[in-house]
């Protein structure tokens, strides 16, 4: 934690060698890109796994490699990778790292060395996770919730090595996330530039900031469950393991409480949903405001909603455990809190709509993704209201209705924001625009495609189709029409999955052939667009830190020449013309 004098001096000079510049880099922008590329890489693996699962559901038995064991392993790794190693890492390690220092006007994160360690620990956790495919017995097939006793009882795939590697990988990930998280919160609180008050920060920063606090407080619950399960598995304790027979044999464990694990897991698991959602809320607010040339409606309300959702997210966890059985009063309590959390959430949706209302909406690719996000999140949120009620949840739990719900709300919706945000910030990161035509194709295929995939799953769920089954062929109450629907979903899913290559292609192609973007192609107000160089150099503002005079949402201010007023423009009328920007950022000022 202590600063090395020489580290401080180092900060004054740009790193010279390729090695220190791009590999062992302490620059938040490089670390952000390292985080993002790694996350997208594992995300693609998880996407392939989902395609393999869908093949089994849509065309049972068509792939020889997909036996029940493999199915469960794919399912577990798919879920865990998507939630933790893709989305959490991408939003906090990727966007958090890139945007926080730039948006609050800092030269870098406050603890650059710890920040670098954070990435390397994350990479290590990914390697451990992927290694579990190759150990004897293969990866764990316990489901991403890893419920004991089955997670460590013979019969479940990967109970020898797979589960141990999974738990160790999670523990390492948590250490990584904590090291990164300390940086993000401290940078937001202590390294803002002159004039950047908390209530002038863009909502992106707010979302990531609150999500990071959730991560710092909630990940320990996962850490505790992982350590306790490792003890049960490796040292034979009975923290979670009850007395039981397995394959005709009495196990050595007795007296442990599987429900205890569920409480710990979901005490982490529910905040985790918001660790993913809050950054998405923040980023999408900025996209909507910028691309509809209007200030965000109810900025303070939006901030307080983020804070309230963050707080409430800690007292709803047991809505994932209605079928595990609980005191009816607890059920009542958790149903109530779950419905209450919908209030600030709905408020945010209204505010996005009111921001759009009579805006000068530009149908850019980021805007398309933002609009799609609002709709998708709305659908996912509404089904969440259904599931929050005990009597509705009990029949629907463990059916495809739940699969539809959580994919809509925390799978597709945040992914849409990720895409929108990448299209939006790519020009700042690389200096070039992503291809618009490919972007639009990618958008429409993804948006319509995911609806075709997940919307029908609601019907399958209401029909009673259970989730986490390898095969549905023998189940009598599932009609032929449901099997046909499953085939349709699979075909669509494969198509949508393959179509993501458009995005990958666009990302790499535009790096070399994209149109030159200039410093501020979207004519946005926030600080990252006002850097003297694009892409920003080491230190972000090598000369003088910017001075902030206003919030991040001065779009279409009456009486102003331009339809946007950067945060660096002083209020003083003598300085009003942007061309005379005194902050010393002539390049950052628009033509």
């Amino acid at each position, binding site marked *: 934690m202590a600063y090395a004098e020489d580290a401080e001096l180092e900060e004054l000079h*740009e790193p010279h060698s390729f090695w220190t510049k791009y590999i062992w880099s302490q620059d938040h922008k490089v670390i952000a890109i390292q985080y993002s590329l790694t996350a997208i890489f594992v995300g693609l693996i998880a996407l392939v796994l989902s395609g393999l699962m869908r093949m089994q559901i849509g065309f049972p038995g068509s792939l020889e490699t997909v036996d029940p064991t493999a199915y469960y392993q794919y399912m577990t790794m798919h879920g865990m990778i998507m939630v933790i190693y893709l989305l959490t890492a991408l939003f906090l390690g990727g966007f958090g790292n890139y945007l926080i220092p730039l948006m609050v006007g800092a030269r870098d994160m406050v603890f650059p060395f710890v920040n670098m360690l954070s990435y390397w620990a994350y990479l290590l956790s990914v390697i451990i996770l992927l290694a579990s495919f190759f150990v004897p017995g293969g990866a764990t097939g316990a489901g991403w919730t890893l419920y004991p006793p089955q997670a460590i009882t013979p019969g479940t795939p990967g109970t020898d090595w797979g589960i141990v590697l999974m738990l160790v990988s999670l523990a390492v990930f948590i250490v990584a996330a*904590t090291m990164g998280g300390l940086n993000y919160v401290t940078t937001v609180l*202590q390294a803002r530039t002159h004039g950047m008050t908390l209530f002038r920060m863009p909502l992106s920063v707010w979302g990531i900031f609150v999500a990071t606090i959730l991560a710092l407080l909630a990940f320990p619950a996962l850490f*505790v469950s992982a*350590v306790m399960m490792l003890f049960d598995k490796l*040292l034979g*304790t009975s923290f979670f393991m009850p007395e039981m027979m397995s394959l005709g044999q009495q196990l050595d464990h007795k007296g442990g409480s599987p429900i205890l694990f569920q409480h710990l897991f979901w005490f982490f698991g529910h905040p985790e949903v918001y660790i993913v959602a809050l950054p998405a809320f923040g980023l999408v607010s900025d996209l909507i405001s910028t691309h509809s040339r209007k200030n965000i409606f109810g900025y303070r309300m939006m901030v307080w909603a983020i804070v309230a959702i963050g707080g409430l997210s800690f007292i709803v966890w047991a809505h994932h455990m209605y079928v595990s059985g609980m005191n009816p009063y607890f059920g009542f309590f958790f149903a109530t809190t779950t419905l209450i959390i919908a209030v600030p959430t709905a408020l945010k949706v209204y505010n996005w709509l009111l921001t759009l209302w009579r805006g000068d909406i530009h149908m850019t690719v980021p805007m398309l993704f933002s609009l799609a996000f609002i709709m998708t999140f709305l659908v996912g949120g509404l089904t969440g209201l259904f599931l929050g009620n005990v009597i509705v949840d009990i029949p629907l739990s463990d059916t495809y209705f739940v699969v539809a719900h959580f994919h809509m709300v925390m799978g597709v919706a945040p992914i849409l924001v990720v895409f929108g945000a990448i299209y939006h910030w790519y020009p700042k990161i690389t200096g070039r625009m992503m291809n618009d035509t490919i972007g639009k194709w990618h958008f429409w295929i993804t948006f319509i495609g995911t609806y075709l995939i997940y919307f029908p799953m609601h019907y399958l769920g209401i029909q009673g189709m259970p989730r986490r089954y390898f095969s549905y062929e023998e189940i009598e109450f599932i009609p032929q029409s449901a099997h046909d629907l499953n085939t349709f979903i699979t075909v669509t899913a494969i198509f949508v999955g393959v179509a993501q290559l458009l995005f990958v292609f666009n990302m790499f192609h535009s790096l070399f052939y994209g149109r030159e973007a200039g410093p501020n192609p979207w004519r946005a107000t926030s600080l990252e667009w006002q850097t003297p160089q694009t892409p920003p150099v080491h230190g972000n503002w090598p000369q003088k830190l910017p001075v902030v005079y206003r919030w991040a949402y001065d779009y279409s201010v009456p009486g102003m020449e331009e339809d946007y007023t950067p945060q660096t423009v002083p209020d003083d009328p003598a300085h009003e013309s942007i061309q005379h920007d005194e902050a010393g950022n002539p390049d950052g000022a628009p033509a």
Partner: protein
Amino acid sequence: MSSYSVSAERPDYQTLNRRAKTGLRFLLAAITSLFFLFILALMIRAQFNDWESLSAPWNPLANPAPLWVNTLMLALGSASMQWARVAARKHHRELALQVMLLAGFFTLAFLVGQVWLWRQLSALGFYASANPANGFFYMLTGVHAVHMLGGLIGWSKTLLSAKRYANEKFSTAVELCAIYWHYLLGIWLVLFALLVCEPETFAAIASFCGF
């Protein structure tokens, strides 16, 4: 290549001190959440009737003297850290370094004592698997020890780079160590109390919380 031209904008020591302390506070918050949840898990697991405390009259920790000795070591470590902190603030560099060394010595003594205790217990057949109370004992003391080791990394970094540090910076580093040590001493005291108390105490706490 260009270096920053306006060195006046480099954060001063006060700023660095504030930043480091803010970071440390959030770290301690995360650590608090961690131990809080461990303790909650212990409370819940202790409600089951197979729980047999290591401090039950017929069990080895009925006489918790070894734990008291270890506690004393950690407390001395923490006190030395505080002494070093005061000395560093007054720019008595030599004294501060010596007392820091002393603090490290006491901390190591604490860790050695804990390991010795683990070996004693397992030699007597009190394995982690024998009873959930044993399991929690090993786990919680272990997790706490790992946090002390983490502290020792910061401690050795401070000692090793002390020569290169300006006074203010050295003083900040020592201060961070001291805060961390006090905090982990506090956590240790809570763990100590919980690990040697009777199941009835847990039952009483649980019923007090309305369960």
